C-alpha cells in the first residue's frame, strides 16, 4: 500500500516535472521528451546543465529563482544582525545567494544546499534552529507553557468557584444569624 502510494507520488512528481520542464523549455523544443535525466525528484524543474556557472536560461528560471529565495531566506547573513542573506544587501550575502543558486542549479536539493552551509558555518547559519536536541526546548516550551497556564487557570477558577458558594453561603447564614 505504501509502496503503491510512493510509486504514485513519484510518478505524479515526475509528470509534474515533465510539465514544468517542458514549459520552461518553451518554444525552442516543444517536442522534447522532457524527462530530465538528472533532475532531483523534489525540485523537478531544476535541470542540470553546467556545474558551477549559470546559463542564461537558469538565470531567468522562475522556479530556480523561487527555490533560491526560499533557501536564502532561511540562511543567516554572517556579517549582519538577524538578517537573512535574502534580505541583506551585503556583498557576502550576494555571493552566498549566488552559491545557493548555483548549487540548486547543479541539482542539489534545498536541504543539501542548507547542509552545505551548515557544514561550513555550523547550525548558527540557520535563522530558525532545527528541532533536535537542546533546540527542541525552543519549540516545546511555549506549547508547554500554554498548556500549563491553561491547567493553572482551570484549577484556580475551580478553586474560586468552589470557594465562592461556600463563603456566600456562610455569609448568608451569618446574615441569617444577625437577623
Amino acid at each position: 500500500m505504501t509502496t503503491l502510494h510512493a510509486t504514485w507520488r513519484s510518478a505524479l512528481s515526475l509528470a509534474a516535472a515533465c510539465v514544468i520542464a517542458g514549459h520552461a523549455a518553451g518554444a525552442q523544443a516543444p517536442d522534447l521528451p522532457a524527462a530530465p535525466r538528472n533532475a532531483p525528484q523534489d525540485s523537478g524543474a531544476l535541470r542540470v546543465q553546467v556545474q558551477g556557472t549559470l546559463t542564461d536560461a537558469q538565470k531567468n528560471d522562475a522556479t530556480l529563482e523561487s527555490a533560491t529565495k526560499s533557501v536564502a531566506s532561511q540562511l543567516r547573513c554572517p556579517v549582519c544582525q538577524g538578517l537573512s542573506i535574502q534580505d541583506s544587501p551585503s556583498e557576502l550575502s550576494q555571493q552566498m545567494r549566488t552559491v545557493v543558486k548555483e548549487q540548486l542549479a547543479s541539482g542539489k536539493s534545498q536541504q543539501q544546499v542548507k547542509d552545505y552551509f551548515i557544514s561550513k558555518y555550523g547550525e548558527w547559519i540557520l535563522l530558525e534552529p532545527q528541532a533536535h536536541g537542546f533546540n527542541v526546548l525552543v519549540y516545546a516550551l511555549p506549547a508547554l507553557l500554554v498548556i500549563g497556564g491553561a491547567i493553572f487557570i482551570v484549577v484556580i477558577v475551580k478553586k474560586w468557584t468552589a470557594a465562592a458558594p461556600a463563603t456566600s453561603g456562610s455569609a448568608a447564614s451569618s446574615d441569617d444569624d444577625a437577623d
Partner: protein
Amino acid sequence: MNWKRAWIAAAAAAPVIGLFAWGLTRDPNNIPSPLPGRQAPPFALAVFSPGQAGLARPVGDTVRLADLKGKVVVLNFWASWCLACRDEHASLSQVAATYEGQPVQFLGVLYNDVPDKGLGWISEMGGQSYPSVDDPGARVAIDYGLYGVPETFFLDATGRVAFKNTGPVTPGMVRLKVDSLIAAAQASAPAAAPAAPSGDTAVPATKGGKAQ
C-alpha cells in the same frame, strides 16, 4: 502560606535567571566554526602578489591546496579595507620569512577586494613576504565559513584544518601553532619527512593512507 508562594515564585524564576546568567558568560562574537578537525576545503587560486625572496611565487601562478600536501599551510584571509588586518600584517609577514626553507606555506587570500587595491595596500604596508592569491566571488571564503577578515586557518601537513583564528594573529601564536604542526608532521612521518623538500610526492601517499 506567603512563604510557600514566595518559594514557588523563586523556583519559577530561578531557571530563567540561570539561563540569562549563562548567556552573559558567552561571547556573542565568538561563533564556533565546524571546520577545525576536518579536511580543509580544496582551492585553486591565482597569485596576484608574488611575495618576496625565497617564499615568492610568480604572479598568475595557480596555488592548489592539493599541491601543498606534506606542508603546514597558514591561510590568512585579508582585505585592503580591513583595519584589523593592518595590526597583524607586519608580524605575520616577518614570522613567515623566518620559516623560509621549512615545510610551511604562508598564503594570503584576498577577500572581497580588488587585486590592484591589494597590491597598493601591500606596498603601503612595506611588502608582504609570502604570496597572496585572489578569491573572486569569495567562493573559497564561503567554503571556509568566513565571517569577516582577518581570519587565519592553520592546516596540518595532511590538509586538515587544525586551528582557526578570528581577528588579528600575534607572532607568538603563529609560531606556536606552526611549530607544533611541523613537529606533528615530522613525528607522524619519520621516514619520509627529513629527506628532501621535493619529497612532496612521497608524503601524500603515506598521509593519504593515514587520513582514511
